């Protein structure tokens, strides 16, 4: 069954996206859904800043504030940043390594739909009794006590989404290890592929502890276990350990792909190869490795003892070294280059100082006794927003502009892009720089309001004004997307003119099979190499032949839907701690699991050999006829 792209109606397009296993279309799905959640998280942020604009404000109630604050963090990290990064990994990495798709296209789709249904489930909490309200970290004693089902939406929703992430992590690892084109050794891989590789390894090893921690919380709340009930022998600190053993690598899962994106953008718009490629690879691996050694720096005030605090303090400081190596290599890439300040490059230029500020406050927080003052204050909030926005969000915005042509065949307006960047950059610093001082002046974090007469009024007001600027910037970006889509002006394969890696050698967007002939990789920055030798195309590694492609399938959708249904059953089961168990709880749980496992069984019982595109049709394509 080939997915032939003849003139399609809306229904056919919807079905195509529901059943696609094509990494490029899955990228669209991730970008759109992740983008939607980014807007949702942004609105939640705006509400936070409006509430905190003045002391004793009552824009939202305290309970609602806790829900908004929790959902802001949870949505932004799990439902916006990670999925959008997955969008770019999907769109770009297979092509960067010269492959036709990922190792497991079916699982790729499954990963998306699990994320989708997990995210939807979590956000249904708003309509079904209230969102989770214990922070995105959901510490065990508070989250056990939380009334209503908010926390249950958190545990169940994140569990479903988390499976998706785990599956995608394995997928990219296998893809990068097994499916590189001939000639592409590990040390010829583009940096974005390297960072995807390491981030995927982090996902594989960091998500299971979260899975277990969340299961323990889920079991305590829904099935009567006692992991965190101190009166029954439980221990709440176990949650903290599990959460942060996951949570710290998680921030590197977020930032490494962003680093990878900048490692593509900076050389492209400096017309110069990445300075210190081997060091950059080494630094990436080291950051990934060290990322697992530092989790208790989130627990300096928990009472682990002087020895533990000292060890984790030093380990945390160590991560600054490979990160610094990267910053200097990026700067030296630009040094001696021919810099063109396009919108992606603008974000890269904004990223360097912003991320460095965030990084150095991180080193300051690593000084454990200093952290006794800084922990759980607005200083921490300032720090992580500096690294997440300065690093990850700038990376995402940069990649949106940079890869838009490759994903959609059009190019976002540079002019509007400049406006978005400027407003966003100013708003970002306006909001978060002052927060360092608010924390130092005694303002704890996660406060629904602050009291007058404590010196906190001016800082909070300034901080809130910045949020409005960022909101306007995002609206302009949305406008940019809409206008670009309406104008629909097509661009060529290498619209930035200086593309270095293989994705810029094929059409924008690429044909669904990516490469007619698997390319031969003759060196690092493969496309640049070919261009410098005057070639107009990549060197093929094989003769033209039939191409084997995977079939579409609706089954990933149903596997995920089953878990979504099961989650409701689990939440309302008669044993739950909220006390509103229903008689249909257990049956619905079983039916949901039945849909999931049944779908898996259907998939396994059938043979699915995919289909072949015939050589003759590819030649047709060459002559301008449509094959797909």
């Amino acid at each position, binding site marked *: 069954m080939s997915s032939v792209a003849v003139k399609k109606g809306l229904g056919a397009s919807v079905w195509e996206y529901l059943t696609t296993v094509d990494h490029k279309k899955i990228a669209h799905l991730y970008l759109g859904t992740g983008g939607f959640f980014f807007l949702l998280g942004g609105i939640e942020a705006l509400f936070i800043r409006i509430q905190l604009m003045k002391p004793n404000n009552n824009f939202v*109630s*305290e*309970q609602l504030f*806790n829900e908004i604050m929790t959902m802001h963090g949870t949505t932004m990290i799990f439902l916006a940043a990670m999925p959008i990064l997955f969008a770019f990994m999907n769109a770009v990495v297979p092509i960067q390594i010269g492959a036709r798709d990922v190792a497991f296209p079916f699982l790729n789709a499954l990963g998306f739909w699990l994320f989708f249904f997990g995210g939807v489930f979590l956000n249904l909490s708003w309509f079904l009794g209230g969102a989770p*309200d214990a922070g995105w970290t959901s*510490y065990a*004693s*508070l989250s056990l*006590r939380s009334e209503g089902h908010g926390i249950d939406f958190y545990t169940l929703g994140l569990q479903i989404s988390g499976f998706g992430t785990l599956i995608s992590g394995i997928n990219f690892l296998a893809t990068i290890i097994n499916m590189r084109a001939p000639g592409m050794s590990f040390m010829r891989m583009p940096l974005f592929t390297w960072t995807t590789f390491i981030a995927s390894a982090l996902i594989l090893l960091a998500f299971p502890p979260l899975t277990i921690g969340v299961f323990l919380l889920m079991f305590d709340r829904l099935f009567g276990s006692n992991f965190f009930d101190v009166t029954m022998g439980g221990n709440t*600190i176990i949650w903290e350990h599990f959460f942060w053993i996951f949570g710290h690598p998680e921030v590197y899962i977020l930032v490494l792909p962003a680093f990878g994106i900048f490692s593509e953008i900076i050389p492209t718009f400096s*017309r*110069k*190869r990445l*300075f*210190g490629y081997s*060091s950059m690879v080494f630094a990436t691996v080291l950051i990934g490795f060290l990322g697992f050694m530092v989790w208790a720096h989130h627990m300096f*005030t*928990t*009472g682990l003892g002087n020895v533990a605090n*000292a060890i984790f*303090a*030093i380990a945390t*400081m160590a991560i*600054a070294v490979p990160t610094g*190596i990267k910053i200097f290599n990026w*700067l*030296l890439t630009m*040094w001696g*280059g*021919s*810099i063109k*300040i396009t919108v992606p490059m603008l974000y890269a*230029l*904004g990223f360097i*100082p912003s991320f460095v*500020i965030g990084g*150095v406050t991180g080193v*300051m927080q*690593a*000084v*454990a*006794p*200093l952290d*006794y*003052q800084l*922990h*759980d204050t607005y200083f921490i909030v300032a720090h992580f927003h500096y690294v997440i926005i300065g690093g990850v969000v700038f990376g995402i915005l940069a990649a949106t502009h940079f890869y838009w042509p490759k994903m959609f065949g059009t190019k976002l307006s540079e002019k509007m892009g400049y406006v978005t960047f400027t407003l966003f950059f100013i708003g970002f610093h306006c909001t978060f*720089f002052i927060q360092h*001082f608010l924390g*130092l*002046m*005694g303002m*704890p*974090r*996660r*406060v629904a309001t602050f*009291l007058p007469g*404590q*010196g906190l009024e001016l800082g909070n007001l300034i901080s809130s004004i910045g949020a409005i600027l960022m909101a306007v910037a995002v609206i302009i970006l949305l406008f940019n997307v809409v206008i670009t889509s309406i104008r629909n002006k097509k661009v060529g394969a290498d619209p930035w003119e200086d593309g270095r890696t293989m994705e810029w050698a094929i059409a924008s967007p690429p044909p669904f099979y990516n490469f007619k002939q698997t390319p031969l990789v003759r060196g690092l920055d493969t496309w640049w190499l070919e261009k*410098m030798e005057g070639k107009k195309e990549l060197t093929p590694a094989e003769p033209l032949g039939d191409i084997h492609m995977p079939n579409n399938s609706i089954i990933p959708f149903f596997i995920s839907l089953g878990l979504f249904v099961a989650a409701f059953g689990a939440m309302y089961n008669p044993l739950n701690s909220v006390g509103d168990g229903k008689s249909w709880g257990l049956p619905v749980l079983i039916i949901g699991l039945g849909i999931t496992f049944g779908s898996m069984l259907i998939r396994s019982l059938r043979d699915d050999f995919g289909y072949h595109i015939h050589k003759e049709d590819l030649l047709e394509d060459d002559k301008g006829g449509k094959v797909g």
Partner: protein
Amino acid sequence: MKFGRLSFLFLLLTLVLAGCGEPFLSTLKPAGEVAETQLTLLFISTSIMVLVILVVVIIYLIVLFRFRRKKGEENKIPKQVEGSHKLEIIWTVIPILLLLSLSVPTIAATFKLGDVKDMDKVDKDGNREALVVNVRANLYWWEFEYPDLGIITSQDLVVPTDEKVYFNLKASDVKHSFWVPAAGGKMDTNTDNENKFYLVFDKEKADEAGNLFYGKCAELCGPSHAYMDFKVKAVSRDEFNQWATAMQKNKEEVQPTSDLAKQGQEVFQANNCIACHAVTANDARPETARTAPNLADFGNRTRVAGILEYNEENLKAWIQNPEKFKPGNQMYKEANLSEEELDALAEYLMGLKVQE
């Protein structure tokens, strides 16, 4: 360039705001050796980091000004440089050295600030030398027990200046965190174990801050997390001893003098407030029974419910409708007392003083 102008503004802001904040609340105005140590660490680490930022910014600005693509150079391909071993070594070794120098004060301070072994030192009579306070965090109030003195109070922590005050910290319901920013960093109050640390309150700084430091809960604990402030009265040793003695003498309830106050006492008892709230400082009940703030010396409290200005109107409003001020509090949502009963109660409670 955009960033240049912005960075200058930030630098200015930094200078202006350093040493900013209120003396009773800001970590930038340390009021004791613990906070001072921590501020010193802030300055050391900031200085080292500013050095790093400076180097980055200088290279960054040079790059931005020298290497932009010029008109007429549209087709120029710059020299493709693979890297530099020398530079890699330099920018690996120097940061390592900087971090090593930072790690020395870090480890030293970790062990110094975490040294609580003197907490259990006893004199020749077997009495504990140091002052120890058992802090119990609850939703949304703080209990302070002085085990060696046999007194319990709440919301207002009274401490002597110029000596180490040790704390045993725990929580009775959910995780909270005990933080007096001007005096030093925080320590979590867990439900699972007891944490220990100490703070010191400097006499001069205390005088500057009006002898009242603000304490905060620093761990999200529910809707009223932001309202879980407590206060620290830092007074001279003599004043502290005077207060402690008065509290110790407060074995039986201070009998109300005026009629209105007597009426208030009756309202207090009729509504069974005594079931949760002790009114004497030597509450012998076990922890699990002490489910509400101890009201001994309530007449000398600095705030109502930890956050409201201390006056009769606020006290009455709090008693009538605590949910309005601290949503989710464990007292009750609303009382149904008449205006008369509230007046009497307020008179009674504000008359609970162990000393003037």
